[in-house]
């Protein structure tokens, strides 16, 4: 009987943990949420411009160029995806 109760508790805990995991990841990514518009892209371009010349800067500039391309094609989700990648490089 004790075993069954313990198993139930563990099961309930695991269920709660699994259910909240997507929210946890979502919350973490919320901190990096970017909006695809000229102001945000210009701000990130300025950030990338100020990086020391290195692989990271090249990668950030490349992602931003892709973001601008996607914005011109009105593909906002793709634009934001590239901006998100650029931000991760800039802030690492």
């Amino acid at each position, binding site marked *: 009987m004790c075993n069954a109760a313990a198993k139930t508790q563990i099961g309930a805990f695991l269920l709660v943990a699994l259910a909240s995991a997507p929210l946890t990841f979502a919350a973490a990514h919320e901190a990096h949420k970017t909006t695809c518009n000229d102001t945000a892209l*210009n701000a990130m371009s300025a950030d990338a*411009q*100020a990086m*020391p010349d290195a692989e990271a800067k090249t990668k950030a500039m490349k992602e931003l160029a892709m973001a601008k391309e996607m914005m011109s094609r009105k593909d906002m989700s793709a634009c934001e995806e590239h901006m998100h990648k650029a931000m991760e490089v800039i802030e690492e």
Partner: protein
Amino acid sequence: MSDPASKASKFWLIALGAALVAAIAGATLAIWIGLYNVAADIPHTEPVYWLLETARQRSVAVRATAIEVPGNLDDADRITSGAGQYADMCAGCHLAPGMKRTEMSRGLYPRAPELRRGSDLTPAEEFWVVKHGIKATGMPAWGVTHSDEFLWNVVAFLRKLPELSPEAYQAIVESAPSHNEMMQEMKAHDGHTGRP
């Protein structure tokens, strides 16, 4: 009768003069109509950015060669004093370990370098920048209001800063004298708020 060579050189002189006048007129017109956007939320084009950065780096490097660096930049008291000054005077723009980007740091252009990531400047160059500032940026000339000794303490701390964790940074700042205390001490030594 003028020879062909003389005529040719006269032609080229006139052509060069005309090109120069046209270039000056074109530049004047471009400036007058506000062709170049000076908004801080729109970055320079890459060639303009490269030109300005190179001019800045070379200007600082050339002028910093005459600066004699004190031999005790690793002195603990200097570093601690510099930490307090950095927290009060610099961190708002240049940030600090564990610090999120501020409104100032996000809006400045050119961006204030995040000094927690280190710097390519030599101590002499760092001192020159802190003392004289940089034109057309947000970097003030702290030498107008602060003594050289005060500023060397900041440089001493800048050399240490990239090594610090957020906790270590907080600890050293908390142990530092306040900016007001240091300014009072500086006034007592110099007899005025700073040297021009």
